[in-house]
């Protein structure tokens, strides 16, 4: 038995221990927001958080998760940073096909949870593992900056919006 939590819910499972977390989420829990793109940790579409760190679920066997805390795109909006990232994604009209965006948002949220106002090179380092075939990269960058401004804005005052040109 492997025991861990997914989105705050404790669970235990006897699936084959080499089952990647990605397919456990999708096939066993019907949590389909986490996407399959490459299967070998090259594209970032399957990014989730394990104990707050961005990891590629396609290359994370469930056997490695004993006692760990998994958060997926379905739940990330319940954290203040995740919520501001999702709002920034809408404000900057980031998505196109949208398939990679769960992973983009999970990577961006992990970045902003660590670095409140990331520089361009911080964004390059954190986000270059997430492929977007539609080419939304400049809007991803703009949305991260918008979210970072929202995160550091003092409470009680209107939040400023960063205008960042593509």
């Amino acid at each position, binding site marked *: 038995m492997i025991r861990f939590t997914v989105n705050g819910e404790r669970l235990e499972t006897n*699936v*084959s221990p*080499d*089952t*990647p977390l990605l*397919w456990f989420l*999708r*096939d*066993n829990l*019907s*949590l*389909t*927001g*986490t*996407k*399959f*793109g*490459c*299967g*070998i940790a*090259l*594209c970032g*579409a399957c990014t989730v958080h394990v104990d707050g760190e961005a990891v590629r679920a396609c290359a994370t066997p469930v056997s490695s998760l004993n006692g760990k805390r998994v958060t*997926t*795109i*379905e739940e990330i*909006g319940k954290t203040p940073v995740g919520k501001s990232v*999702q709002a920034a*994604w*809408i404000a900057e*009209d*980031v*998505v*196109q*096909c*949208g*398939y*990679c*965006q*769960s992973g983009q*948002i999970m990577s961006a949220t992990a970045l902003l949870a660590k670095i409140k106002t990331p520089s361009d090179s911080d*964004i*390059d380092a954190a*986000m*270059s*593992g*997430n*492929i*977007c*075939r*539609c*080419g*939304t*990269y*400049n*809007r*991803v*960058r703009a949305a991260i900056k918008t979210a970072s401004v929202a995160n550091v804005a003092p409470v009680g005052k209107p939040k400023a919006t960063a205008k960042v*040109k*593509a």
Partner: protein
Amino acid sequence: MISKKSEAHDSNSSNIDGGQINRREFLKTSAATTGGLIIGFNFVAGNKIASAQDAPKPNTSPNAFLRIARDGAVTVQVKHLEFGQGVMTSLPMLVAEELGCDWTKVRAELAPASPLYANTLFGMQATGGSSSVVNSWEQMRMVGATARMMLVSAASNKWKVDAGKCRVENGVVIGPAGQRANFGDLADAANKLPVPTKIVLKEAKDFKLIGKPTKRLDSASKGNGSAKFGLDVTAKQVPNLHIALVKRSPVFGGKVKSFNADKVNGIPGVTHVVQTANGVAVVAKSFWAAKTGRDALTVEWNFDGVAKPNTAEMRTAYLETAKKPGLVAKAGNVESLKTAAKTVTAEFEMPYLAHAPMEPLNCTVSVTGESCEIWAGTQFQTVDQGAAAQVLGFKPEQVKINTMLAGGGFGRRANPVSDYFREAVDIAKQAKVPVKTIWTREDDIRGGFYRPMMAHRVVAGLDSAGKISAWDHTVVGQSIMAGTPFEPMMVKGGVDNTSVEGVVDTPYDIPNMQTTLHTIKGTVPVLWWRSVGHTHTAFAMESMMDDLAKAAGQDPVQFRRAYLAKQPRMLNVLNTVAEKANWGATLPKGRALGVAVHESFGSICGQVAEVSVEGGKIKVHRVVAVIDCGLAVNPLTIAAQVEGAIAFGLTAARYGKVTFKDGQVEQSNFHDYPILRLNEMPKVEVHIIPGGASPTGVGEPGTPPIAPAVANAVFALTGKRLRSLPFNEDELKA
């Protein structure tokens, strides 16, 4: 995809803008292929379903295009696949503009397969050729206008006033004495009224929504994981859903000789092993069991009589072939090349390219008795419906296709031979359980249906004044259309227009221009790929124009202008992009600009790329793009599409290639088929030319200019001319 839409579009639109439209004409253009009682929209108000005509017939398509609920919610059925291009926003905008509803109450749904949802330019349900907004422009506004008139009639009847004295604002009909009624409250009454025969559409000057940057309606669901793509169909929707993975022949055309599933059958979760047309499928209760099973499967292949292509040999053969004239695609007298003051000879090579959409191909099929239900993100519902029916021995109407969101497509999900549909249906039929067939990334990269490998050879001459005197252009490559059901329509006199589009119809006024084509019969399956023939023709044309400018000792922008005197749209785009990019200004040391401009899908896109080269690596710092796409419906989406098209074209220019050794594809996943990443994305500015009577294509025209713009910038910087795609950057090492 299918070319020459712009002409059809232009003739369609010229008689409707702002004018009156006869209902009968509307039926003729929009529903010609559908037959029966279809009026372009029906109402469903509350629980009551009725045709909007006087004498309702049994209603098989209750949600045709528009539904206005009693609570005022406006639901638009979007007949096209949403795969990033923004149709779930732009098509509802067209409806809402004429309907006059409250935009915040508008929802979009993807329509299922039905003749009702035919692309008005193609006569079948299809998304491609950058035609979604173009073909819907009249139809969707008519839907909105018709509904508005019926709602106004309902209100005027209620108030016993002249309908002409009522107006509509934000989902409310307002009467002459200030009476107010919400659309939702009028829906039932409107539903009982006859459909008006004369519809007046707004004039462009009165547009409130069209032309306004409008945020996408699908952002929230795509940002919180709730949006449902084809791959996201689960056993919750389709009970007893199984997953299949297929081991396919590693060489195109190979067949299964025998297979051994001894090690597969004991794997927990594996339920079936079935042979398909070109492989063996492992069916299981989960992806991981199916994958484990497929890994344990051994297949012996029969390659008798099967060609085993090698890219190195093909390149040599293509370039040799290009030295001889092919079948004439565009006639011209090139005799004067012999006496030209200068000639420039250039050979261009472009490889096979995989589409590599982020969501790998998949198709979910459930067959029960006399019916079949399918869930898939498809660009080609009509074709796929027919193919599925054929596999099952059904009629098309026995096959229901639920159109799901697609994680990209770029042409791969519009396959005239429906490869992934046929295979998935066959597996479900044999396994006798509902099955979702999933392609892994390796399956996708190695699965064929590529942008064809091409070679171009151009010999062009300049006279003593530096003017082009003749241009002899030879194109070599496989035909996309040959062997498909579209061949009779798309291949004329042996010339597949998709092989030569962008050359034979170049807007440049080039004298004595001849284009010939060698169509190679190959075994590698080929297909349209975002911007189709323009992916390679623009590279050859715009690289060549740059070379000739250099040979003539002229500035590349100035040189091009001389051939665009009769092309005001193209000239305007060229001049605008030069101005916006500050063409001619002094740049920092180590930087240079390159320009390219190309017409495709009825639109013109010009781009100026600013590059540097360090250690033999190209860095694209900035791209200024200008697009003339006619009347701009949603500038926000248009800018996004151009940005994305540049990323797509830059990926191909720098990295994209599928190559063969002994018949097998050498690439497999994103490590050897790389995609441009965030840290490599240039800054992009998009400028949209205002005006235009009606929209032209948007999704594809941004892709063709980027490769030549970058190559031309590299040439300006280094003097080295890159004529192969992807760029061989080793040539740039000092």
